[in-house]
């Protein structure tokens, strides 16, 4: 896999903490593997929207990667609810082309960005850097940067 220069939190230089929400264990593993290759840290996982909300409250991650179609509660509703109680939440929707309307809806409800499935690491990397904005810093120390 490609090497990415680690992205850290600019306020304390700690790894960026992620909450990954997807009903497919496989997809979660896959995403976790990617964010770890960006120097991130997996703060929590959830397989449905309801769990996502409680996990958010528990872990206060820097970034949420949120699937759209999930049992119990859809990603959109979960995103909306999280943003309602945490306006600074950075939620990135992860879904396939077929659910574009849902992504639009999620963006209207406060999601910060979206990536298309299948997720390409280099795309996710850029998206994460963008979503973190000033709160993220690319560590220059680590070898080959992108």
């Amino acid at each position: 896999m490609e090497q990415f220069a680690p992205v850290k939190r600019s306020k304390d230089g700690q790894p960026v903490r992620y909450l990954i929400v997807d009903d497919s264990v496989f997809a979660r593993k896959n995403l976790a593997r990617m964010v770890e290759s960006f120097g991130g840290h997996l703060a929590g996982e959830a397989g449905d929207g309801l769990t996502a909300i409680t996990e958010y409250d528990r872990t206060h991650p820097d970034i949420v990667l949120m699937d759209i179609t999930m049992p119990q509660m859809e990603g959109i509703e979960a995103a909306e609810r999280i943003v309602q109680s945490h306006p600074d939440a950075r939620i990135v929707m992860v879904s396939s082309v077929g659910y574009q309307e849902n992504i639009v809806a999620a963006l209207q409800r406060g999601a910060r960005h979206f990536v298309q499935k299948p997720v390409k690491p280099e795309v996710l990397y850029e998206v994460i850097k963008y979503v973190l904005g000033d709160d993220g810093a690319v560590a220059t120390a680590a070898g080959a940067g992108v």
Partner: protein
Amino acid sequence: MSQSDDRMAELRELFFESAQELLQALNDEALKLEKHPGDSEIVRTLRRIVHTLKGDAAACGYRELSEVAHELEDALALESAAAHASLAEVAFTAADLFSAMLAAYRKRAKLPSRDPLRKMVKKLAQEPGAKQSGRRKAAVTAKTLGWTEYEKLAVQKAQEGGNFVYHVQAQIDPHCAMPIAARQLVQNALAGMGEVLAARPEAGSSAPTKSAEFLLATDKSCEEVSGKCQIPTIVASVKAELLPGGVATAPKRAARKTVKAAEAEIASPAPEIPAVEEPAPAPVAEETVSENTAQPHTTLAENILRVDAERIDSVLNLVGELIIGKSMLQQALNEFSKVYPKEALRGKFADAMAFQARVLNDLQRSVMKIRMVPVEQLFRRFPRMVRDVARQCGKDVELVLTGQDTDLDKSILDAIAEPLTHLVRNAIGHGLESAGERQKAGKSTRGTLRLGAYHQGNQVIVEVSDDGRGMDVNRIKAKAIQLGMVTAEDVARLSEAEILDFVFRPGFSTAEEVTEVSGRGVGMDVVQSVMHRLKGTVHIDMHAGQGTTFRLKLPLTLAIIKALLFQVQQRLYAIPLNAVVEIARTHESEVHQVDHYEVLQLRNQVLPLVRLGRPRSNDPERGANKLFVLVTSVGERKFGLIVDGLEGEEELVIKALDDHAVSTDLVSGASILGDGRVVLILNLSTVVEHFARSRPEEAGAVNFGMLLSQADRAQLSRNAAGGVS
């Protein structure tokens, strides 16, 4: 790089596992759909399953699978598809194809043809009334649109309020497959800086235009605005122009009419969502409803740890060693008590050991529980199979499952999958009659097949029963005689249960013609041999004309058994305690001979005897010799084992024996006792089978010495040859 290869391999492994779950769910939903055709809820669930599979496959690089799943997913989105009668059929075909493709990926073999499914999917899509036009047209090229009077007014107001108003033009990245979402994102970015006064295409429009224009009122500089819109992977280029002074210079002023025309033009390629509506919220609400029918695997997956079965086995093995250690301590304490009967410390030791024993018991039970899985895991594959087989045979069959939550050791569950499949196929193929036949017999035309599981003591019973015609005892008799398994005169004396047992002999099949479904002449003996291996039994319960029940009795676990220990020729043996019906003490004089077999009259029953050790002695006082007879039940038959002495009950941790270590199948395993002695565990069903098959030719030559070494036996039979009455 090899590390990431490893990870990929691990991911793929995970993918195959989760894909299996998805396929199971796909089959389940398809079955439901067949029962409730046109249920849009089920169709949505189907779509979500296919969607997840598509995503996972794509992430693993299995492009072909992802593609056909994608086609199916698209087709499932069509309104007409939901109501389509053959949709369930398509789903079944898809499940089969996906499964075949997965197998091919796994073996790196050639992929099966996707065309049959593609054709079916196409048919779904082409059905009249299919509204979605499939592919959307290519992106509309950038075009500056006019602003409405209202918007112009807003611009004017904003400028009067001291804001800059920018005309922002953004080109969406050509690689971005979701231009609508991309435009929304740009708008979000702009909204973060000020007020978006207007947008083209309008917010929420479903036109797949890859360019967007906005009017933004903000106090930020031009660079800031365009910088904020440079969203990686989404925006290819962005241009922000400051609108000078009044709105009069806004680009391409146009009348309201022109705008409408332009909108209509853009909206037309995707007519399923009228541009005037707010398209997003509606589907959301629908989808949320369907989530109630969550797939079981997704809810299950949350708190579950995947652990290699071997690791659990090694823990269980250690627990086994601990149990041996416990009996060693017990042994030591007993000896200690004998030497110092008055020592007060004994009580303390006994207390500590009782406590330890209790904890050990709990530990053992918890570890065993880890290995336990509900039979649901096995049962759930049957609905689909029953449907297919019933269809092949042209029969109408209803499958009733009970006791799915009964827990069983995983290895046992895996082992009975094949026998159970045979039994189910047989039940549909042979057991259940055709609808016409059933009607004649006064039964409902639909046959019922029951698959159930429940606990009974230390065992688990799995039953396959049908309400069909039952088995033809006479035909089985005839066939058994024809195959030389029994003579015509012997057969007359056999009980029905014994006759039915012939079907488990290798090579036995009464099916007149060999079909794809059943009756290949192999199968039933597989059932028997698997049950032997598992130390279980199989029993047939049959009522002519009313149905047949195959009852599989299985031990809860393979690792630890409660056993009865006994001695034969100073050697220690054990049999599972649950096979022992009772222990009888009798005298040699009570043993009679019928034909060439020894029997014992036990109350009002005649019990065939198996002498495990030396033959009946020629001692004149033999009549006074006391005998221990272990009355055991194997299947439905009872046998008496004559043993030399009893040792007691014990929990044995079974250690598997190498095939090289034992040359006989009479012994199924071994164990170590607390005092270090080794005990062999007898495989009762093979012992009895050996006995039943041996046919002593000369009168009076009884069965004995099954457990003796060749040399011992030769010696003993020479001695015995003298004067057996």
